[in-house]
């Protein structure tokens, strides 16, 4: 993917009247379907210029919340504010939405389709044409401008889908599982684009269950469970505050040298070596005991991974 300075591009490409921005705030969203509660007073705030991960078990209201932000579903209670004011339909023209189940008009030609979406978001014919050219070039799909979408490879369809979301130079991106179905190269391209957009001041919110990925590219995450927030914060801070674990790998030892040292999990990594993880033990004590027992091959203090934080947050 060709990477061009985004700030420079936006200066020429951003349609007038789109300068408004500010935090996106979901306040007390409630939504039920019959007896199922999808959202139960969901509140969180996303600052502009951040990549924001929106996590939670499947069927836990993430899609509902995103649809409410995009105005294609109404909450039973609560509001969405943007830059301090209640979000309006006109504001949402500066938003981009990529639903989890992707789809475009399969018989349309790529450029026609992008231009159509740009115009629906309020760009003039001229602005739409310029935006199409810019994004086709930027995502490296200029050569397929006049191909029908149904004739494209899976990878190119994914790129067109991304271009379709970005063609009107949105201030806020709302992406539902943007990484699902992408190959590693596609994931890298997508992550790059999201990072660059955030650096250029765009608000990026996406849901995902690929937690390693979220850990790598998100500045901030919110984890919801049963329709309400259970954990929120900057990824770095969450990891630092989470309980760190101590990992040792010791060779040629008696089987239970670690007894009585706090919560421990042991696994044999090869016939002669055992890896033991402690959650709340004194490192000095553990190290002394291990050295007495055998040869220490690895000694590390590990921050919790996002997966661990997630499991702790939504666990039973």
């Amino acid at each position, binding site marked *: 993917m060709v990477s061009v300075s985004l700030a420079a591009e936006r200066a020429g490409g951003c349609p007038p009247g789109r300068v408004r921005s500010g935090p996106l705030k979901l306040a007390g969203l409630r939504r039920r379907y019959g007896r199922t509660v999808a959202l139960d007073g969901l509140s969180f705030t996303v600052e502009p210029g951040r990549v924001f991960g929106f996590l939670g078990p499947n069927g836990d209201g993430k899609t509902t919340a995103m*649809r409410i932000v*995009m*105005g*294609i*579903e109404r909450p039973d209670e609560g509001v969405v504010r943007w830059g301090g004011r209640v979000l309006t*339909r006109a504001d*949402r*023209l500066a*938003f981009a*939405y*990529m*639903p989890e*189940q*992707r*789809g*475009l*008009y*399969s*018989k*349309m030609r790529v450029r*026609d389709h992008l231009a*159509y*979406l740009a*115009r*629906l*978001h*309020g760009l003039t014919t001229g602005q739409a044409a310029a935006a199409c050219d810019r994004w086709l070039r930027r995502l490296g799909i200029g050569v397929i401008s006049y191909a029908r979408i149904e004739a494209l490879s899976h990878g190119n369809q994914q790129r067109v889908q991304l271009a*379709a*979301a970005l063609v009107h130079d949105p201030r806020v991106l709302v992406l539902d599982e943007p990484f699902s179905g992408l190959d590693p190269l596609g994931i890298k391209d997508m992550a790059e684009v999201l990072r660059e957009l955030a650096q250029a001041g765009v608000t990026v919110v996406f849901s995902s269950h690929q937690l390693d990925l979220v850990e790598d590219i998100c500045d901030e995450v919110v984890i919801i469970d049963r329709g309400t927030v259970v954990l929120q914060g900057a990824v770095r801070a969450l990891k630092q505050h989470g309980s760190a674990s101590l990992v040792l790998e010791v060779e040629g030892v008696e089987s239970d040298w670690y007894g009585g040292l706090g919560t421990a999990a042991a696994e044999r990594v090869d016939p002669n070596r055992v890896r033991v993880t402690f959650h709340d033990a004194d490192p000095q004590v553990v190290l002394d005991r291990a050295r007495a027992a055998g040869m220490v091959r690895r000694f590390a203090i590990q921050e919790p991974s996002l997966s661990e934080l997630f499991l702790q947050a939504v666990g039973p």
Partner: protein
Amino acid sequence: MSSASTIRLVAGREVRERGRSKAFWIGTCALLFGVIAVIVVPAKLGQHGQRTFQVGTVGAVPGGLASSVISDAAALGGRPDIRAIGSGTQARAALDARILDLVIDGQAGVLVRGENTDQSVADLASLVARDLAVQARLQAAGLPAERIPGLVSPVPAAVRSLIPVSPGNETSKAIVALGTIVLYLSVAAYGGWVTSGVLEEKSSRVVEVILSAVRPRALLAGKVIGIGLLGLGQFAAVIVAGMIAAISVGRHLPPSAPGAIGLIVLWFLLGYAFYCSAFAAAGAASSRQEGAPTVVGPLTGLILLGYLASLGVQSNPDGVLARITPFVPPLAPMVTPARMLLGHAEPWELPASVAVMLVATYGLVRLAGRAYSRNILRFGGRVTLRGVLRP
């Protein structure tokens, strides 16, 4: 962005994308070809207009026979081409080869081919046979030969109509018959387009992206207007082609023809407006392309019912059916042109039926628009009629 410009954008996409599709052009060509064939083929086969009867005479025929054959043929809406044939054998051969329609064989009487003889030729043969018999009687009664033709084919007495026959009535019937078929096919076909278009958006999920920028009603309005414009264009092309075909085969279009065609176009628009929102709601109510026939079935059935009712109205344009159905909105588009053009409608009937239709359309569009908006983002689950209609 205003609703109007959004609707224009959506409608523009429909017109461009569908106008470019092969399916549209194949359908248009098939319809044009069909209409032209219906007009041109019968005219070329001589089913309509001036029929020329090929009449051969063998041997001595009674004086004045020619003038009675001419008036007999005229009574059947044609004219004879009479020529003398050398021998009976030659005449039989010509009859067999369909060069002649019938042969008057002096004293032996009238000869026709027999098998596959046209009804009008059979009618002419029996008229001519009766003339021959009358002439023979008159001759036997000793009447002078020169007085016989005047007696056999006199100037007929006037026939007056109790209910005046409007000029060009036959042409009106043809216009109504053909127009109603095209109207019926068009409303059903464009309705089907609306359903499949809505379903295409829904099943590909592109609708979620579109609806994050556009109100459901604007998307719906743009879609039905776009397809309606294409339909109107196709309808107009069919009418122009039909008129050119009719004129080129020598059919005389009465002065009332443009009015008749205008009335059919008006009812096409009313019919499409009435049905399109229901077709859209049907598309929104199903989740997959396979579900479409179930939800569209009742609608196309209703349109077919209207067409069948129209056949009844065409054969009896002043009957009870013809008086009532123009005020039954689902049937009105197909039956009202027949009632107005062929029957003797009171002046208030047309505006009244249009008014009833407009009120019903307003109600249906509101109901169907609501059903569409509610169902367009609802995926999965079985479609029930109650689900579609629930306010």
